[in-house]
């Protein structure tokens, strides 16, 4: 039960913020406002889910923001070249997965620091964006535009975009992978202690590569969701998104040391980041930089909270 406590705190915090907004501002308490949290942060949600697995395994992936930008720019370029939209999507997903797998291979095979490998990956991906185009490339493809404008009614006059739906589906699949597959259990075991996981006979090597592959795949999918949202490919898309993703995972109650956390927590972490921005925009008198300060304060709160739980649990003796 103690393990559920950080997740509970996250959900309670989200509900408290929602209640605060509902009391303070007119029109805040509507289904559409809450669906917009998901719609506006769909790409962040998808990326943060991939990041959750990486962090659960005790690693970190700094390359996701740059990989999103690369995905948007490759998508836009290929569409301009007349590729079929679905072929473009499959191609960028494969590229993202391959990119992640290479990073994972380097980390696993040569025992390199995930921080450094993914930093090099971030430089490389962002650099490739600049090489392809420094200008923003608009996406005029009919299929992409149709997906971008499509609205799925959910009743009560409220609706969800395809991007938002993708985010929800990704969260559902990831929860399934994390809690009831061999891969998911191995990820938790590696985060708990890599050498013990190895001694237990778990396939540590392939799982570690798989975790980064998954993160790359999620980043590419996040990039596709972003192309729906922005309808453009640009080398400066998603600058610093990796930090938001890490923040969402931590606020979601996942331990940065690895081994403890829930994918569902990450969804609420993303929603909390979203609701902070929504509260600030509803207020109107607060400036955008308050978002950063509040996110920083929340990070501090959750890290201290985690230390408290660790200190009390018998595991940490």
């Amino acid at each position, binding site marked *: 039960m103690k393990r559920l406590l950080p997740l509970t705190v996250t959900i309670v915090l989200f509900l408290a913020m929602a209640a605060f907004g509902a009391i303070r501002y007119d029109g805040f308490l509507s289904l559409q406002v809450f669906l917009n949290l998901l719609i506006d942060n769909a790409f962040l949600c998808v990326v943060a889910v991939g990041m959750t697995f990486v962090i659960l395994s005790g690693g970190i992936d700094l390359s996701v923001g740059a990989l999103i930008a690369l995905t948007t720019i490759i998508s836009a370029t290929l569409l301009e070249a007349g590729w079929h939209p679905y072929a473009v999507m499959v191609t960028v997903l494969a590229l993202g997965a391959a990119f992640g797998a290479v990073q994972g291979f380097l980390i696993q095979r040569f025992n390199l620091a995930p*921080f*450094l490998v993914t930093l090099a990956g971030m430089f490389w991906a962002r*650099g490739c964006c600049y090489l392809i185009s420094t200008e923003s490339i608009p996406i005029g493809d009919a299929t992409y535009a149709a997906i971008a404008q499509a609205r799925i009614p959910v009743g009560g006059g409220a609706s969800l975009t395809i991007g938002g739906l993708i985010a929800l589906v990704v969260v559902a699949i990831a929860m399934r992978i994390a809690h009831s597959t061999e891969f998911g259990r191995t990820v938790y075991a590696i985060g708990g202690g890599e050498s013990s996981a190895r001694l237990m006979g778990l396939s540590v090597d392939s799982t570690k590569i798989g975790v980064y592959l998954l993160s790359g795949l999620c980043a590419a999918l996040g990039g596709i969701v972003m192309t729906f949202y922005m309808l453009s490919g640009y080398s400066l898309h998603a600058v610093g998104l990796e930090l938001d993703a890490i923040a969402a995972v931590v606020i979601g109650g996942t331990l940065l040391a690895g081994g403890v956390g829930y994918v569902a927590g990450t969804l609420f972490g993303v929603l909390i980041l979203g609701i902070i921005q929504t509260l600030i925009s509803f207020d109107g008198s607060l400036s955008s930089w308050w978002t*950063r300060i509040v996110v*920083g304060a929340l*990070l501090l709160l959750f890290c201290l909270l985690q230390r408290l739980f660790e200190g009390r649990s018998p595991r940490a003796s």
Partner: protein
Amino acid sequence: MKPSVKRFTQHPLFWPTITLALLLIVSSVFNPSFLALTWREGHLYGSVIDILNRAAPLMVVALGMTLVIAVRGLDISVGAVVAISATVAALMIGGSFSATGEVQSAHPLWLALATALAVAAACGLWNGLLVVKAGMQPIVATLILMVAGRGIAQLLTGGQIITVYYAPFFVLGNGYFLGLPVALWIAASLWIALHLLLSRTALGLFVRSIGGNPEAARVAGVRSSAITLCVYTFCGLAAGVAGLIVSSNVKSADANNAGQLLELDAILAVTLGGTALTGGRFTLAGTVIGALIIQTLTSMIYSLGVPPEVNLVVKSALVFTVMMLQSAEFRQLVARIARPNPSLQGNRR
């Protein structure tokens, strides 16, 4: 290989120096006037001086980062601290035109600089407290300030870029002393002071022992908490100094962009110089060379007329190469490929 040659190639500074030398040679091949120095307007002038001047803030930050990494830490908030320090200094100096047309500073220059540095050191101390007292992982502890720091800096400036008109402040980033840039003097004196402090006192040994094995160091009586706190505080202070140089150079403070991605460059400079990311082994001279490699590379790419977009890709290749060279597993692999028949090797022995 002769023992003397081997000792030379195995020196920790061998590869960083070779890399820097190669970059300089390539630069001077493509641009014959690259190494030329001329005396103009009372100071030395040339590409090399320009690189040294531009590398100074990175050197200062990277020196602080070296010590943090040496005690098994990491500080990813230095970019944000650079922005905070630049903002505080610019706000305190301000600059209003008096009736005679002279620019006056709102507060005395020394007070503005001291406050900026004190705030920066406080940021470092905060990071240190989170790491030492709250027991957080360094990357998480400093992530908090990295996220919130720029927000705080923007809050101070109200989101505006603060322009400074008070000329004496510009000396830090644009001035010259004895023919060399003032920024270079600052970086060099910091390096020398740090080198003396760490080699002439037991402090260097303590830092190495904490990085090598924190628990063993503590048991052996090293005051590891106090030293780690000092190291983080110093790193914040160093970022503050860099912030002053940067804002003085551009005569303004941009809370959103000052020191952007500097934390990554600083970590890169430290790694390029041969300091182990796992702690314990560090070299200040290596860090200085690492910072020079990064700046030389950037300047070279610009001066060769290569589109600056290539810069990041080249940088990533550089990180990649250094990473692989430092990996024991990779060296083993290379050794195995170089000697394809290990059984024969064993028999001979």
